[in-house]
């Protein structure tokens, strides 16, 4: 079982690399609005998260993701469902 806290930390670390100048990224940071990532950058980031956790996030789930915590929950669900 992957812990959501661990997943969140890894997502935050990935976003910090994508936006090194962004101040204090946390669970409630909104990925598009707060970090001002354009749609191509968001897609690249999601693809890298998928690689990191060896999952594929269905597009309808991507559409519901706003914050870092939203993404962490989706990743947790997919990781743990696949390993269940």
């Amino acid at each position: 079982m992957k812990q959501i806290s661990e997943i969140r930390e890894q997502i935050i670390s990935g976003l910090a690399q994508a936006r090194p100048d962004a101040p204090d990224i946390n669970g409630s940071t909104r990925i598009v609005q707060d970090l001002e990532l354009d749609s191509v950058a968001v897609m690249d980031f999601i693809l890298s998260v998928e690689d990191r956790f060896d999952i594929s996030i269905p597009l309808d789930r991507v559409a519901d993701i706003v914050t870092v915590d939203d993404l962490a929950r989706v990743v947790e669900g997919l990781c743990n469902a696949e390993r269940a």
Partner: protein
Amino acid sequence: MSILDKFEQLRHTFERVGSGGHNPFSVAFDRIDSATEGVVDGRRVILLGTNNYLGLTFDAHGIEESVRAVQTQGTGTTGSRVANGSYAGHRQLEHDLAAFFGRRHGMVFSTGYQANLGMLSTVVGRGDHLILDSDSHASIYDGARLGHAEVIRFRHSDPEDLYKRLRRLQGTPGSKLVVVEGIYSMLGDVAPLREIAAVKREMGAYLMVDEAHSMGVLGEHGRGLAEAAGVEADVDFIVGTFSKSLGSVGGFCVSDIEGFDILRVASRPYMFTASLPPAVIASTRSALQRLAEDKALRTRLNDNAHRLHGGLQRLGLHVGPHVSPVVSVELEDVEVAVRCWNALLDGGIYLNLALPPATPTSRPLLRASVSAAHSPQQIDAAIEQFARVTRELGALPAEAPQIDFAPAHASAG
């Protein structure tokens, strides 16, 4: 408060793009004179952004057939084929398309957009999986949204990434359908279809190829990338359009799959829309025949593609990675791109401006598409205008780009 307030940001962007002269997203032609020439705001322009790859919009036989059809069968069918019935021409065109592609079945849709909507929303359903190239056309994404399959993306033209995603789905119930395009419409790059077909074979998925921009362009007989790459047997569904190399409007799917015709009473974008009018069917059939018989069209198209791609590359502009009839120049800055586009139009060259997020790289594109009907002089005139405009507006990149020769599978024709 207005119901349209949510579009304020879009309205602002749209108006800003149009503030420098013409609005690239609402160009109105005074007149179209031929497949390669028209008039905008009283100025004669070379049409270099119309996807009219074989230049058949003014084909004499096509026009004759179209006129005859409208005179003998009327202006429209006034309804869907399921409700109002099919005309003989609908069936004949489907037969022609199936024969051209060497397939058992063909189905015609009222636009290319609807072909993707109709197929992708229907062929896969709840419990199935759609695996889309991340740079897919809007019609593919919209078709995916209209249906009930689970949709995932793989990295653009990356067979290894596709393999990884199919591997993750192994053991999951449901059919898997991989969707790619022959030539991608924004940069004109060609999919690595041989490698994608190998992945599909190994992993037991279905494969659909959208040959919208590659039909009549690639392959010895013009059947598109599947023919050029030698993998037609691996492609379960080919979709395409009549509004590019066939010079009219409409879309289609051909396939060998058993039971194909059930889609006619299952696919809502096929069932609940008016069918193509007789004049369109007639010119499309004529153009398909010309495409199949006149290989010189593809040779001229290919020559023109090389001439424009090579010419712009020699200027030091960033062009797409493969030589194809879509020749796009990537610029750094949206404002500069809008100014270049206006200056090109004022200089007598009409082409497309593509802005992020509709572009694959977050950068603006000046997107040209060449035609077999362009003369070498017209292509040279376009290159000259590109040279003048990009120099005057400082749009040439600081460093000359690395010259990137197209791989063997990528050349047009």
